[in-house]
């Protein structure tokens, strides 16, 4: 199962609830303003780093670059994908849940 989160964890509670309710082994994609959750050095880094023991976490690189960051800013263990990679994630998982 793939979870998508498009909101900043500073602004909204979507990422928090997503990580609380995602089953072990589920994939999580951070995109749009959700990419801030994937960034090193923020207040949310520990939360996201811990989640990596349960879930694969991905971040959409174009949304990261639009916001002035790149792969080097991403928490160790979080993988960057482009839109083609986003499509593959959807295809590879049985269902997709958007945490709007």
């Amino acid at each position, binding site marked *: 199962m793939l979870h*998508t989160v*498009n909101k900043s964890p500073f602004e909204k509670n979507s990422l928090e609830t997503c990580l609380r309710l995602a089953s072990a082994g589920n994939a999580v994609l951070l*995109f*749009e*303003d959700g990419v801030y959750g994937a960034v090193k050095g923020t207040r949310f880094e520990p939360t996201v780093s811990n989640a990596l023991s349960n879930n694969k976490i991905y971040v959409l690189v*174009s949304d990261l670059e639009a916001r002035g960051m790149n792969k080097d800013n991403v928490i160790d263990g979080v993988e960057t994908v*482009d*839109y*083609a990679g*986003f*499509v*593959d994630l*959807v*295809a590879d998982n049985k*269902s*997709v849940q*958007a945490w*709007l």
Partner: protein
Amino acid sequence: MKFGILVNEGPYQHQASDSAYQFTKAALEKGHEIFRVFFYHDGVNNATRLTVPPRDDRNIVDRWSELAKEHNLDLVVCIAAAQRRGLLDENEAKRQGKDANNIAEGFRISGLGQLIEAGIQSERLVVFGD
């Protein structure tokens, strides 16, 4: 694989429509089929032909129309959501006694059943919103 796409927000105000467009384009480039793109809530506002965005910015509506033409996409606008927000095609305008319509090329207005059908017929449904 067959994908369905749901767009819940209008153009420009939220990134949802941009993301849905980029995703749809990437899926088509990978050889997937798009069963339908369904526009709900403020998403119906993506279907107006009356936008005039600044020249140095993208034209979100035209982009959808062109992608639909190129790939024969089924772009469906929810009728109930469209009525609340003032999106009409020629038939609806006549039926409602309105003196103008504003729907863009490549979009059609239909019921919510089309969203459910997209959920049933597509192998994956991907939702973009606020």
